[in-house]
């Protein structure tokens, strides 16, 4: 039964007992104390009248002395009873109010409401553990796709913030420890409409236990987890976690890409991030020395990934002494003062990365560095969302927001898992191929946004399935023709065909397709939605391949049907 009711009743045991006791004694008193009737004869109140009198006296209604005027003895007893019953009532009501206002009780109340809301969700939703920058962005991104989210966070203030956000889809949130399976259960882990679980807290152990719980209960459900160290990452992959994001490593790779390979960086930006940068924004890559301010977890990952690409780096950090042995080219200092930057050789450097965990420091580093060397390429790390405005005004070459970067990557993975595989593969491309790919994409979409669409040939593409099963060959070229006029080509491009473990990047137009192939297309939104027809409507597909449009009218159907 209802836990809340039990707690309420348990706490009210004593107040209610006192109330009953006081009433009983009062009633008994009135029955025992002799009175006089209107004739002046001795008279004793019976239980019925005594209870009637005490009832209206106790509730301070006060109809008067009923049925006959009281004697002094009765009035004296009435005085006692008035105070006793009022105090008993105050005590009982006060106890009840204090139970209702009790922290634990209101938490129980919220939990129950939350569980009820989650149970009543019928549409597909994602369960998100951790509502920091990344969590917030993922929720907003999912909402744009029309997918609901359920949020668990350990911090009540974040859950309060959730209620203030203006989401068009209701997002339900609970302040609870996500590492406890019972809380996950409340949040709909066992709900059949739960599409996946995203463990995005800043505690690796919590993420680990969330992922394990989900994978144990529902092995097929998507699990995405954040992880800050390699041991956890390996552990997470060992039981089949679908995607593990290491915020520091991934962001460092992404930022490193911006510094050493602007072309590939633009590909990643176009395909993953919704905001479109023009092709002209890929600044000319200058080889030279970079200065990296901030050598924490993020800085270390970044230095590693940039060194791997052969970029020379000078490190600046206030705690550089402790690394002095391993890092020969390093300066002690924050980087906000001109002297430190000059010491780091800012005049000869090609770029500076302000990557400390403090936004004010980062801003200051960029401003100071620019004064010393106006031609410097500037990359700045933004830690807090609330500083958005200032960072926009800074006009740095790149503003990097780790939480947001990770969120976009997770969203891209949830939308089209194939995209992540394509990006992994594309990192192996050389600069010339990357430039060519960018130009092809640019010709297709111009200044519009690049959209992505993926198909697995089979059940989800009935037209293609039927066509291939009938023994006919299908080349990629046919799938790029306009369903309206096959002489025209759709403004789409096949980025990747995945067959088993084999990847074909930018497959040729004559590639023959097989059932089970996964294909990733990029192009304009309008053309991609036209392209769906080819996959779903066999008549359209037939037209695109052969140029003939067969008549499937009712009459011809019967005529042919009998003939077959």
């Amino acid at each position, binding site marked *: *039964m209802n836990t809340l009711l*039990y*707690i*309420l*009743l*348990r*706490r*009210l*045991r004593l107040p*209610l*007992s006192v109330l*009953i*006791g006081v*009433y*009983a004694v009062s*009633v*008994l008193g009135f*029955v025992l104390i002799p009175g006089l009737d209107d004739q002046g004869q001795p008279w004793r109140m*019976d*239980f*019925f009248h005594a209870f009637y009198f005490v009832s209206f006296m106790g509730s301070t209604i006060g109809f008067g002395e009923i049925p006959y005027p009281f004697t002094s003895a009765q009035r004296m007893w009435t005085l006692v009873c008035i105070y006793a019953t009022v105090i008993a009532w105050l005590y009982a009501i006060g106890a009840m109010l204090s139970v209702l206002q009790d922290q634990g009780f209101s938490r129980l109340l919220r939990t129950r409401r939350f569980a009820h809301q989650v149970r009543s969700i019928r549409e597909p939703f994602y369960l998100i553990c951790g509502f920091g920058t990344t969590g917030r962005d993922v929720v907003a991104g999912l909402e744009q796709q029309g997918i609901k989210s359920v949020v668990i966070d350990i911090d009540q203030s974040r859950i309060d913030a959730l209620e203030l956000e203006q989401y068009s889809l209701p997002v339900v949130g609970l302040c609870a420890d996500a590492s406890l399976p019972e809380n996950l259960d409340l949040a709909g882990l066992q709900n059949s409409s739960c599409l996946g679980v995203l463990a995005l807290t800043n505690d690796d152990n919590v993420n680990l236990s969330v992922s394990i719980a989900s994978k144990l209960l529902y092995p097929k459900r998507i699990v995405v987890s954040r992880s800050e160290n390699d041991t956890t990452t390996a552990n997470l992959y060992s039981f089949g976690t679908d995607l593990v994001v290491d915020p520091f490593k991934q962001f460092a790779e992404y930022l490193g890409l911006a510094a050493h390979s602007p072309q590939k960086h633009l590909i990643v930006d176009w395909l993953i991030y919704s905001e479109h940068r023009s092709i002209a924004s890929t600044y000319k890559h200058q080889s030279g020395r970079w200065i990296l301010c901030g050598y924490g977890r993020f800085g270390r990952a970044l230095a590693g990934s940039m060194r791997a690409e052969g970029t020379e780096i000078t490190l600046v950090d206030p705690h550089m002494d402790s690394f002095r042995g391993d890092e020969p080219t390093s300066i002690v200092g924050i980087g906000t003062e001109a002297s430190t930057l000059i010491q780091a050789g800012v005049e000869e450097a090609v770029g500076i990365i302000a990557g400390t965990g403090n936004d004010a420091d980062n801003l200051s580093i960029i401003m100071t560095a620019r004064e010393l060397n106006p031609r410097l390429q500037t990359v700045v790390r933004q830690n807090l969302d609330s500083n958005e405005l200032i960072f926009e005004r800074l006009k740095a070459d790149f503003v990097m927001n780790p939480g947001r970067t990770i969120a976009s990557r997770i969203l891209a993975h949830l939308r089209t898992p194939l995209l992540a595989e394509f990006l992994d593969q594309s990192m192996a491309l050389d600069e010339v191929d990357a430039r060519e790919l960018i130009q092809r994409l640019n010709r297709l979409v111009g200044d519009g946004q690049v959209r992505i669409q993926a198909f697995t040939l089979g059940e989800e593409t009935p037209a293609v399935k039927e066509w291939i099963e009938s023994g006919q060959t299908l080349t990629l070229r046919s799938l790029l023709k306009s369903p309206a006029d096959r002489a025209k080509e759709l403004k789409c491009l096949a980025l990747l065909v995945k067959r088993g473990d084999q990847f074909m990047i930018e497959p040729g137009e004559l590639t023959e397709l097989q059932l089970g192939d996964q294909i990733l297309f990029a192009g304009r939104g309008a053309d991609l939605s036209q392209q769906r027809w080819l996959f779903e409507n066999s008549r359209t597909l037939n037209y695109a391949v052969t140029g003939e449009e067969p008549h499937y009218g009712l009459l011809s159907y019967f005529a042919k049907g009998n003939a077959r």
Partner: protein
Amino acid sequence: MNREKVVFGFFIILALTLNVGFVLGDIDNPAHHEVFELFLALVVSLICTVLKFGDRSHLGALLLATSLVADLQLIAAAVVWAYAEQISSLGMTDGTMASIVSLAAGALVANVVSVVLLVVESASIRR
């Protein structure tokens, strides 16, 4: 010794004894049935009910149920008594007295069950 258990046991047994005291005697003879005893039985029974609140165990639920039954029967008996004394033109008759006592006897059965359950619970505690 658990003070809470003493209070709990005290009220449950008291509810039974008061109830027995009221029911004893000829069923239709008003002289054998004291109104004070009915009143006390009712009050003690109500307190018992409140004390049984909030126990989540199966036995606790059963105890609460027996107590609610006893309350219901005793309140019905009290209402019949009040009706006979205050409203009915005939006053207290043998028939009315018989129905009051039989209602109280029903409550007595519920109270007996309650005590039996209490004894069973105590006996099942292994030390």
